[in-house]
Each structure stands twice: as structure tokens, then as C-alpha cells.
């Protein structure tokens, strides 16, 4: 258990000549929860996409559980939830989970369990198109947790959720942490993230401006991190 869950060394990402990430290096131990903060366009999503293997780093090295990100075995351990829900509107909840579950070798029983857990079992066979926003989001959360990942990568999970879904997600995340799952979530909503986080990172114009443990000051005062570690602008 000595090697870190996530380790990046000197990661750069260019879009053309524009560096979206500059020399990002950090290591996150297993079972930690990292809150990734930063303004819009600072590079949070870019970093998360690189960690999830959706995008390649232009320079530098990324290791997830000491494995290559694009290795199939590594990706089987990652749960991803992006800005959008990542579900097919024309398929039912069960079919959606079955389609994704097949890629992770998830059993039918597990799918049924998750449908119960996110409280969608009664509508599991009607198409996602007919769901309310909250139901779609709960299903998206179930999809990300479905295969019991060891690393959760959530991009702005709280922004698009309603209260019920936030409560559900928080309880799931707390449960996952108790089971030793490593979590990285990017967010502007500092309060929700701070309650979960054990580490805090601030990205400022592509650079890692701060990486450290969550302190008491951060809990009460949302602006504290930006004022202390961010640039004046």
C-alpha cells in the first residue's frame, strides 16, 4: 500500500500553443478525497480528463494505482462522472446500466441493487427520456458507482444536482471513503466539497497553486483558499 493512488509528474497539456496545464505534479494517497478548486477555465476539467484517460498529456507522466491510464485494467478501477450525465435517452435505466455494466463485467444482481439504492427500481424499464432531471442525475451517479471503482473522478458533481441528489451523492461518497475509495472532485461549490475533502488543490491558470491538507479555516470561509493561494486577479 506504499505507492500513491494517483501520481502525476510534470504534466503539461497544450491546446495548440496554449498551455492549459503547466507542470502539474502531485501525489494522492489511497483513501484520500481531493477537492480540486479553481476558476472556470483554470484547467480543472482538463486535469480530470487526463486522469480519466479521456485526453492524453502533452508532456509528463500520469500513474493511477501505479498503472498506465490507458491500460484497460486501470480504467476498470475508475468511476467517471462528467458535466453531462452520460446516459442514453432512448434506453431505459436498466438497459443503460446493463450497457455500461457489460463493459465492466457487472452482474445483473448488482444492477438491480443499484437501481434500488438510487430509488429508481419502480421506473427502471421506462426510457430515460421520460425521467425528471433529478432522476436522471441519480441514475448517472449509480452508473459511476456501478462497478465498485477504486478511484472516483467527478467533474463538478454538485453543480447540476438537485438537493435530493446532492444528499444521495454525499452519503454515497462518505460510504465510499469509509471503504478506502480514493476520490477526486472538481467544484466551485466549496462548502459541500470541503465537508468531504481531506486534501485541497487549487488550480490557477493551469498551474497547481496549492496542494495540501484541508484545514479548519477552509471549512467556514469559501473565499479563504482563493485569497490565500490564488493570484490577485
Amino acid at each position, binding site marked *: 500500500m506504499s505507492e500513491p493512488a494517483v501520481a502525476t509528474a510534470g504534466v503539461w497539456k497544450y*491546446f495548440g500553443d*496554449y498551455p492549459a496545464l503547466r507542470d502539474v505534479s502531485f501525489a494522492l494517497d489511497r483513501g484520500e478525497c481531493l477537492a480540486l478548486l479553481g476558476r472556470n477555465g483554470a484547467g480543472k476539467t482538463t486535469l480530470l480528463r487526463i486522469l480519466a484517460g479521456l485526453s492524453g498529456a*502533452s508532456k509528463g507522466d500520469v500513474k493511477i494505482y501505479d498503472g498506465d491510464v490507458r491500460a484497460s485494467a486501470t480504467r476498470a478501477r475508475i468511476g467517471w462522472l462528467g458535466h453531462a450525465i452520460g446516459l442514453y435517452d432512448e434506453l431505459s435505466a436498466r438497459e443503460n446500466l446493463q450497457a455500461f455494466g457489460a463493459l465492466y463485467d457487472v452482474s445483473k444482481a448488482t444492477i438491480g441493487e443499484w437501481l434500488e439504492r438510487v430509488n429508481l427500481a419502480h421506473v427502471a424499464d421506462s426510457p430515460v427520456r421520460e425521467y425528471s432531471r433529478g432522476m436522471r442525475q441519480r441514475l448517472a451517479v449509480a452508473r459511476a458507482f456501478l462497478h465498485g471503482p477504486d478511484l472516483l473522478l467527478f467533474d463538478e458533481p454538485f453543480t447540476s444536482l438537485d438537493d435530493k441528489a446532492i444528499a444521495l451523492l454525499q452519503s454515497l461518497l462518505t460510504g465510499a471513503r469509509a471503504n478506502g475509495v480514493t476520490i477526486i472532485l472538481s467544484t466551485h461549490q466549496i462548502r459541500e466539497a470541503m465537508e468531504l475533502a481531506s486534501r485541497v488543490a487549487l488550480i490557477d491558470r493551469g498551474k497547481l497553486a496549492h496542494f495540501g491538507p484541508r484545514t479548519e479555516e477552509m471549512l467556514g470561509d469559501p473565499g479563504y483558499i482563493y485569497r490565500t493561494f490564488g493570484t490577485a486577479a
Partner: protein
Amino acid sequence: MRSKIVLALGLVGVPLLLRNLYVILFNLPDEMEQGPVYRIFYYHLPAFFAATLCYTTAMVCSILYLVKKNARYDAIAMACTEVGLAFAAVNLITGMFWGRISWGIWWAWDPRLTWALICWLVYFGYLMLRKAIDDPTERAKNASVLSIFAYVSVAITWKAIEWWRTQHPGPVLSIRTGEQRIDPAMEQMLYVNTLALATLAAIFVITRLRQEEVQREIDALRRYAHAL
């Protein structure tokens, strides 16, 4: 440094082109069956070689880009493709003039011609694809993949005269056929003019490459100006 290379290439290439034109028109005899019109051949075939050379370089650079992710390789691939299209156009249209006399028609749907035209369309599509993508990294990546796919049609064009019986003349160069099918003086001129056109192609490619760099500088400056 680079402009010196262009200058040197120009000093070799342009006089060579003019000398070749003189020799082609006044020193070399008419071909027995075809008459004067066969001289088009001295541009038709070398242009094909120059274009193939460009396409091949583009394919190699596209692979290098995908391996090394260095934007310069992508720029070389783009420059080569564009110049290759110009030379392929020379190849196609000179061929049409020759065909009008020798076959009596402007265009024969013969495998070699068909494939040369397909190559042109495929690589034109490559340039169109580049225009349609804004993000430079995405553009470079997708264009490189397309360039590799496109090269299959170049390979087919190359082989088309062997695979199908066509009206198009078969290979004539002794290095390919292993025997002397045409007059040595004529064959020598084909090589020399290929060299001249290839030099010209190199000048074009280097110029186009420099323009691409200036374009990148402009884009960077524009972003900087907006950020101010």
C-alpha cells in the same frame, strides 16, 4: 538560415527548369509514333513523381506526428499535401491534353486515371477537414489519421497499371522495368526534370511551412491581444 536554403534551391532549381525546357523543346527529337505532343510527358511523369513524393512525406510525417505529438510534423504533412495537390493537378491536366491527341478524348475512365483523380479528391478532403477543425491539436491528430488512410489510395494508383490492363502507358523507366524501353536521352531527361520539379516542390513546401509558423505566431498574438 531557411531563406538561404530556399535561395540555394532556387538557384539550382529555376535555371535547371529553364534549361530543361530548352532541351525538351529544341534538342530532343520528336517521338516516332506520337509526334511533338509526347513532350508533355516530360512534365506529366515528373509531376506525378513529385506529387507521390509529397504524399509519401506527408504520410511519414503524419505517423511521426502521432508518435511524437510534435506540431511541426503536422505542419510538414499539411505543407506537403498542399504542394502535392498542385503537382498532382499538373499531372492530371497535362495528361488530359496528351489524351486528347493520343486517344481522341479528354478523359478515359481508365484505372490509372481514375485512381489519380481519387487521390486528388481524397487529399483535397484532407485540406477541407483541416479547415473545419478549430482546435490545433485535434486538427493535427484527425488530419494525421486521415492522411494515413489516404495513402492507401496512393499505393493503389502506383500499382494500378500493373493490376489492370489499361490504355494508360505502362511503366517505361528502366529502373522499374529492368529493360531499356525508351531512348536513353529521353529517359535521362525524365530524371533530370523530376529533379527540377522536386526542387521546386521543396521550395514550395519550405515556403508554405514558414507561412504556417507565421500563422501560429499570429494566432498566439491574437490570443495575447484579446487577453490584454
